[in-house]
């Protein structure tokens, strides 16, 4: 679409009103420049934007917590549904409620943090309990001190002992030591003991024990292990209750989910607006907005500006950096997303969407090629578009598959495939006959298995047309830019050469004259290529060698053409898979049980076939466009047109142009 660059001059007092109108109408793409023009200043809005973004972050976090604790019940089709529309006036209400909602969000976040703390505390308690476990038999506190005459030593030894082996070990260490001990817990890697000895022998006892690897407990407490663990358990219970309370509280905030999402949108809108404000060139009383606008929208913009009294518009032809907005008719529009997924066209490109759209539908249909599946696609997408009222982007995606469905039905009928060979299989089951789809359908069909060679030739012929169209686009682009040598020599000659080969190949099947004609064209073009392709090189020899070498490119054209054999391969895959499941379905006979099984296998089998092959068809169609066709002419790398608009997530403002 043709772009104009626009400058809007207005009084500062009208700034708010004008910007609001511009944001509502989504007409203008604001030009991003780093510095103001001379004599103007920029307003630094980064502080406000930061504030908005912090609020967006808070709402985001709160929504995430809510989603975790109170999962939203969403239907299977929810992702197709359009956003609810709201009245522009409602934004004001959302704005005035926003402080309250933000404080709710903060509460939610705080509660969630408490829950995290509680959870951490629980883990700590659990560890402490596990540490106390071996000491449970001990009926004095872990940090018990010596009595008047007896030394008390509590701790662990790093291996397994029983009463005898420990006595022996201690006696072996020091024969003088008088001791008494209790083993509280023993396992292969640890023995917990309490040892009593006369106080005057404390040092001796310690020494003996140390050589056995004795160590004291890490967290000695002043209560008996039993009491301590009871206390810990009680605390754990308390925390559990508190954590539940916090969870309940968060749950009680679930009703705010909608409001939080809306508040988030409000801040998104605000931050977009303030970003634009920071791009405005301002003097004391006047501000200037630089932007781009599609030519056809200029009148609308004028009307808006007239409604804001003190405003001057300056519309000129757009410069080199202008963004690109694609506009296509209803047939091609759904394929726009396929083009932009690759890259937005650059200023030098022509919009490839119409060409791409036709071939996309055509090739997808040929690969998916089943009338039954096609009908299902059409039905599902039509119902989704009408019942769910999806947003613009989703709607255009659904339309893409709707059109692909039409083409799939067409090719399904050509290949005689309706849920594979289901009609034939079912009629055979009832009548006991031995019909095939070819017998059943009143028109002549192309059987993907029997006529595979024929379909392969067709596929490559379609490929040739596809590639020639791509090269034709290149030819056209070069002519438009007056790069005649490139147009006629680099593109035109190759196109003619390919046509020559095609005529030659057709001639082999039809008549000798065509062989001569095609061969003649091909040779003439090859000579032409040798003569012209080396024109960038120096010297006669260099030019000749360059020209000769360029003929080597024929290999890339051949491999491109062969690549189209996937049209046959995927078409066949769909047909055969469907056929396999039909065969499996009829294995169970005609009893009631058999019929139930048949329906089950039929439904599941075809669902699998649809899933796998629709994916395959989509991916390979895309590849044919991107690799085989786009490589012939398409540059891409343009900047997409992104107007200043109401870009909200959870609602759509009524009558706004945003998509």
């Amino acid at each position, binding site marked *: 679409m043709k772009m104009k660059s626009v400058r809007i001059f207005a009084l500062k007092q009208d700034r708010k009103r004008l910007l609001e109108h511009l944001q509502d109408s989504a007409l203008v793409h604001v030009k991003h420049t780093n510095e103001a023009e001379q004599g103007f200043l920029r307003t630094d809005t980064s502080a406000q934007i930061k504030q908005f973004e912090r609020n967006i972050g808070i709402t985001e976090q709160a929504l995430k917590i809510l989603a975790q604790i109170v999962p939203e019940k969403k239907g299977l089709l929810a992702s197709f549904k359009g956003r609810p529309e709201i009245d522009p006036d409602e934004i004001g209400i959302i704005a005035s409620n926003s402080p309250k909602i933000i404080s709710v969000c903060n509460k939610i976040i705080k509660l969630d943090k408490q829950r995290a703390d509680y959870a951490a505390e629980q883990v700590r308690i659990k560890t402490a309990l596990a540490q106390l476990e071996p000491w449970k038999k001990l009926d004095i506190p872990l940090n018990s001190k010596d009595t008047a005459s007896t030394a008390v030593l509590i701790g662990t030894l790093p291996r397994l002992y029983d009463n005898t082996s420990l006595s022996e070990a201690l006696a072996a260490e020091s024969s003088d030591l008088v001791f008494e001990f209790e083993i509280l817990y023993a396992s292969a890697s640890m023995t917990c003991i309490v040892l009593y000895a006369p106080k005057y022998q404390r040092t001796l006892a310690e020494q003996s024990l140390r050589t056995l690897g004795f160590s004291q407990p890490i967290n000695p407490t002043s209560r008996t292990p039993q009491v301590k663990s009871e206390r810990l358990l009680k605390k754990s219970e308390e925390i559990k209750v508190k954590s539940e309370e916090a969870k309940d509280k968060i749950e009680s905030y679930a009703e705010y989910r909608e409001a939080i999402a809306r508040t988030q949108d409000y801040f998104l809108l605000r931050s977009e607006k303030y970003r634009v404000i920071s791009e405005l060139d301002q003097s004391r009383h006047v501000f200037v907005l630089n932007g781009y606008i599609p030519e056809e929208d200029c009148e609308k913009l004028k009307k808006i500006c007239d409604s804001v009294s003190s405003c001057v518009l300056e519309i000129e032809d757009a410069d080199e950096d202008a963004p690109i907005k694609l506009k296509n008719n209803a047939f091609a529009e759904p394929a726009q997303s396929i083009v932009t*997924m*690759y890259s937005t066209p650059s200023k030098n490109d022509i919009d490839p969407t119409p060409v791409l759209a036709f071939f996309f539908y055509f090739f997808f249909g040929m690969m998916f090629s089943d009338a039954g599946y096609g009908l299902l696609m059409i039905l599902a997408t039509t119902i989704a578009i009408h019942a769910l009222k999806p947003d613009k982007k989703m709607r255009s995606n659904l339309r893409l598959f709707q059109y692909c469905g039409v083409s799939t039905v067409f090719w399904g009928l050509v290949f005689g495939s309706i849920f594979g060979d289901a009609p034939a299989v079912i009629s055979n089951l009832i009548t006991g006959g031995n019909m095939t789809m070819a017998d059943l359908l009143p028109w002549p069909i192309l*059987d993907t*298995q*029997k006529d*595979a*060679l024929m379909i*392969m030739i067709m596929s490559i012929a379609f490929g040739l047309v596809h590639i020639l169209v791509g090269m034709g686009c290149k030819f056209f682009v070069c002519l438009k830019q007056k790069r005649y040598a490139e147009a006629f020599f680099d593109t035109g000659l190759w196109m003619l050469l390919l046509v020559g080969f095609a005529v030659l190949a057709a001639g082999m099947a039809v008549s000798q004259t065509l062989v001569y004609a095609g061969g003649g064209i091909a040779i003439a073009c090859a000579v032409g290529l040798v003569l012209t392709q080396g024109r960038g090189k120096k010297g006669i020899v260099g030019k000749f060698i360059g020209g000769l070498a360029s003929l080597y490119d024929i290999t890339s054209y051949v*491999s491109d053409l*062969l*690549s189209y*054999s*996937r049209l*046959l*391969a995927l078409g*066949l*895959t769909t047909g*055969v*898979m469907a056929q*396999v499941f039909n065969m499996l379905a009829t294995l169970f006979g005609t009893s009631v049980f058999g019929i139930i099984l048949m329906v089950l296998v039929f439904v599941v089998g075809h669902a699998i076939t649809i899933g*796998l092959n629709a*994916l*395959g068809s989509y*991916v*390979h169609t*895309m*590849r044919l466009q*991107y*690799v085989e066709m786009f490589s012939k002419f398409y540059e891409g790398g343009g900047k997409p047109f992104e107007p200043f608009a109401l870009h909200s997530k959870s609602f759509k403002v009524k009558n706004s142009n945003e998509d």
Partner: protein
Amino acid sequence: MTGIILAILGIATATVLAGIGSAKGVGSAAQSAMGVLSEDSSMFGKMLVLTLLPGTQGLYGFIVGFLILINAGVLGGGALPTVGQGLAYLCGALAIGFGGMFSGFAQGKAAVSGILMCAKDEKNFSKAMVSITLVEIYALLAFIVSLLIVISVPGFAG
């Protein structure tokens, strides 16, 4: 009987070898995809597409196997293939068997890289997808060769 056994060997070769290729390819792609999903589960759709791309080889092998199954009369009915015909089916199956297996391995590796690329920036999705399908052409060529052999084995051509 030798003829039919050779044909059955062909069915097994096509299905199993190509299946190995796809299983390994999809397996390694799925591993990386799950790694990505553990960080960001919203990418499931894209990851699914990239993971499934090396899965077609197995399908091609299966289809060649199935066509031999039908054409050679393994399912009963009709004349049994001669030794020469059985050998022809087996040879036809070798193309997709080996072509599918090795292209499955290679495509799996490409899919792993594509998944990692897509994880860094979702905008890379279409580029990753197209790059991964570049490998597929070789499986396709093998498939078509197998197919043409199988449907035109002398004496059984449709």
